């Protein structure tokens, strides 16, 4: 395998692994957060604005970790710096 193939294989595989594993934790965490918020809503419907606002802000915080993984995968697939480096080197020869 030459360098380009290694980079392509590594980028594609790691992009999939990144999103796959990286979304597991946030998914579990968001599920827990929503479940807890729902049970608090059922117990105290009067506090629904506060609970909903805090839930949204918290979900955004949790979700941002998954978004980081997604952005890293997107960079690896569509804007891979190593791939571009190899391409420019090959074009320069």
């Amino acid at each position, binding site marked *: 395998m030459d360098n380009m193939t290694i980079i392509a294989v590594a980028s594609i595989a790691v992009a999939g692994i990144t999103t796959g594993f990286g979304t597991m934790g946030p998914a579990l965490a968001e599920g827990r957060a929503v479940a807890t918020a729902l049970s608090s809503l059922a117990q105290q419907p009067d506090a629904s604005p506060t609970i909903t606002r805090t839930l949204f802000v918290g979900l955004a915080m949790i979700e941002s970790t998954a978004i980081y993984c997604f952005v890293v995968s997107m960079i690896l697939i569509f*804007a891979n710096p190593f791939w571009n480096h190899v391409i420019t080197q090959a074009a320069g020869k």
Partner: protein
Amino acid sequence: MHLSPDQMIFWQYGVFKLNGTIVFTWALMVALALGSRLVTRRLSTELVRSRWQNLLEIIVTAIMKQVGEVGLSHPEKYLGFLGTLFLFVGAASLCIIIPGYQPPTASLSTTTSLALCVFVAVPLFGIEDQGVRGYLKSYVEPTVIMLPFNIISELSRTLALAVRLFGNMMSGAMIVGILLTITPFVFPIVMTTLGLLTGMVQAYIFSILAAVYIAAATRSRKANPEQAPALAPAPAAAPAPAADDHPTKEHAHG
């Protein structure tokens, strides 16, 4: 495939490129500014008022109420900054129903500049509220050991603000783009509808987080006047649970 509206080039002269981000940002800014100007030109305090005035009043009072609930004691002071953030991000994501439009917030440059605005505005509001010493003191609370962590959190939350908005907006546009190649007829419309919801939630979250950061920078050292003497000798005085808008800005001295 266009990863971001940065790659849509409308016009190019030498090194100057007029890409999609700039065009759509300015179009949004013109639309928002002209629209508000047209609506507020004929404001009425009577019972009979235009429907656009009603719309603006609903938006402004809703933003003010939300900002007030976060814990900022004078929401109208921060309304210009936070409301502009919300309206811009919200309008940028609502306009995806227009064909050929790509949200400028799907470009990392736009979201970075918005996050940098928050990054600059939070210390400014904090210094304006409690002075340079008072604001800088909040970095070494409760102990000096926390100083590097406070600075790191300041930087990392700016990065998080930028990347969160960018990731959400970019993923929405990209999912629609991918689905167009797989199931071209109905399903992208459903995903666009979901994108509208996500965009509004992201706009809400962006402005609420900015409000939370400003609230943390402005009111954290304010203690209640009657509790201030009792809290004064304690080294790690907890932040006041309810920030009243009392005139004296007493800080609990650590």
